[in-house]
C-alpha cells in the first residue's frame, strides 16, 4: 500500500546487515565504497537495553524514546498547533504593545557598539546594574533573527510538506523548491532553533539561573548590588 513497510518506523530505514559490526563495534559507516568512522550516535547506535538499533536518531533524543512514527506524529502536530497559535498571539501582542520596536529593534547606538558586545560575550562578561534590564545588541539581533526568520521558515517549510496545504497554497512549493527541499530546510531550521535554545539556556545559567528564570516567567528581575562599587564607597 502507500503506507509503511514496517509496522512502526521513524526516519530512514537502515539495513543493519550492510554495516560492519564487530571489531569496530557500531562506530563504522559505509558510503560510496568507503568505510569511515562515525560517532555511533546517528544511524546506528546502542539503544536503552544495549541492543544495536538502526534508527536514524538515538532513543534519548526522540519522543517517544521507542520507535513509533504514529506517536511521534501525534506529539509533533499537537505541539505544532500549540506553538503556531501561541506564536500568533505573541506576534500580535509584540506589534500592538510595541514590544518588538521598544525592546528588540537594535538602536543605532547598539549597532555602533556591536564590537564591544561581541568582546563582552567572548569574555562571558554580563551586563550589570541597569544595563542588565535591557537586551544587549547581540541578544536583540539573535531574537529578531529567530522570531522573524527562523521560526517563520520552520513553520512554512513544515506546511510545505503537507499535501493538503500544497493544494491550497502551491506557491509554497515554488518558494522552497519542492517538498523534499522544504523537508531539508525544516530540519535545518529546527536544528538551529535547538542550538539557539541550548546557547540561550547556557547564558541563562551563566548569568544567574534563578534570577533569570524568575524574570522570564514573571518579569521580576532583581539587580544585584554592585559589590565593588559598594566597597569603594565604604571608607
Amino acid at each position, binding site marked *: 500500500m502507500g503506507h509503511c513497510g514496517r509496522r512502526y518506523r521513524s526516519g530512514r530505514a537502515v539495513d543493519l546487515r550492510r554495516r560492519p559490526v564487530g571489531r569496530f563495534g557500531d562506530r563504522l559507516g559505509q558510503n560510496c565504497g568507503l568505510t569511515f568512522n562515525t560517532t555511533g550516535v546517528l544511524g546506528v547506535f546502542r539503544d536503552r537495553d544495549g541492543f544495536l538499533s538502526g534508527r536514524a536518531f538515538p532513543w534519548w533524543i526522540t519522543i517517544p524514546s521507542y520507535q513509533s512514527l504514529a506517536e511521534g506524529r501525534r506529539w509533533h502536530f499537537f505541539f505544532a498547533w500549540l506553538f503556531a497559535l501561541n506564536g500568533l498571539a505573541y506576534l500580535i501582542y509584540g506589534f500592538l504593545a510595541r514590544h518588538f520596536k521598544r525592546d528588540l529593534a537594535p538602536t543605532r547606538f547598539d549597532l555602533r557598539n556591536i564590537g564591544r558586545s561581541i568582546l563582552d560575550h567572548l569574555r562571558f562578561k554580563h551586563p550589570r546594574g541597569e544595563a542588565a534590564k535591557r537586551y544587549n545588541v547581540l541578544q536583540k539581533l539573535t531574537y529578531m533573527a529567530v522570531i522573524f526568520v527562523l521560526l517563520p521558515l520552520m513553520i512554512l517549510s513544515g506546511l510545505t510538506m503537507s499535501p493538503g496545504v*500544497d493544494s491550497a497554497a502551491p506557491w509554497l512549493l515554488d518558494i522552497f523548491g519542492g517538498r523534499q527541499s522544504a523537508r531539508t530546510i525544516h530540519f535545518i531550521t529546527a536544528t538551529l532553533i535547538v542550538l539557539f535554545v541550548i546557547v540561550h539556556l547556557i547564558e541563562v545559567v551563566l548569568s544567574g539561573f534563578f534570577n533569570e528564570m524568575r524574570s522570564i516567567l514573571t518579569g521580576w528581575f532583581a539587580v544585584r548590588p554592585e559589590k565593588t562599587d559598594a566597597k569603594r564607597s565604604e571608607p
Partner: protein
Amino acid sequence: MTRDLLTRRAALGALGAGGLALSGCDQLSQNQTFKRMLEGAEKLSLHGQRLVLNSSQPMAREYQASDISRDFKANGTTKPDSEDYRRLAMNQFSDWQLKIDGLVKKPISLSLADLKAMPSRTQITRHDCVEGWSAIGQWSGVPLSHLLESAELMPNAKYIVFRCADDLEQSRDGSGLYYESIDLVDAFHPQTIMAYAMNGQPLPVPHGAPLRLRVERQLGYKMAKYVMRIEAVEDFAKIGFGKGGYWEDRGYEWYAGI
C-alpha cells in the same frame, strides 16, 4: 568578575529538569487522557485544512511527464500472498470484479474492462509518504465520483470504505486486511480516481494491481492498493478496530492531509 560563572545548584537544577522532562514523555505517551489530548490536534488539522480546501476545492499540483520519478518506491505490501489474489493475477485480472455496495441504491459489479470503458482521468502527481519521501507518477483511472454517481449514494452515506486484497499482518482471521476510508469531500474531488494504469502501463502488482485509490491531497497510506470492494457507510466504527483504516487502527491519523 564579581559573580560566579556557574553555580553548582543552578547546573544541577537545569540538568535535572531536562532529564525528568524527557523520561516523563514515554509515560505520557502511554497515558490515555494525554493520548486523547494529543489526538485532539488531528481535529484542528482536519477542520483547519477543510476551511481552506472545502470552499474552493483546490487541485493538487500536476507535473510534467519529464518530472516522473524513475524509481517510484513500492511500499507496504508489494505482492498480496492470498491464493485468491494469485489466481486473479495469473489471468491478468480478467476474472476480477470490483464490487460497489453498502449504502447505495444500485450496487454494481465491474470488470477491469468495464472500468476502462468508463470516462477516465490521467494526472501526474506527487505521492507523499508519511515516512517523508515523495515520488512523482502518472496515474490513469476512473474518477471515483463517476462510480459513486453510477451506484447512487443513499443520503445517509458519509464515508467511502475501500476493502483490499492484501493482509499486511498475514493474519488468519482477516484482522490484518488492508482497508481505508475517506469522506465525501475527498471522494468527489476531481483528482480522486480509481487508477488502473501507472506511467502509461497497466498498474503493476507492487503498486496495487489491478486497481488502487488516488486521493491526491492526502498521504500515501490513504491510497489503498489492491482494491476489491468499495463500500458506502454511515460510519466506520464497526469496521476493523474502528478507526477508519489499517494504519489508523495502528495509531496514524484518519485525516492524512498533513
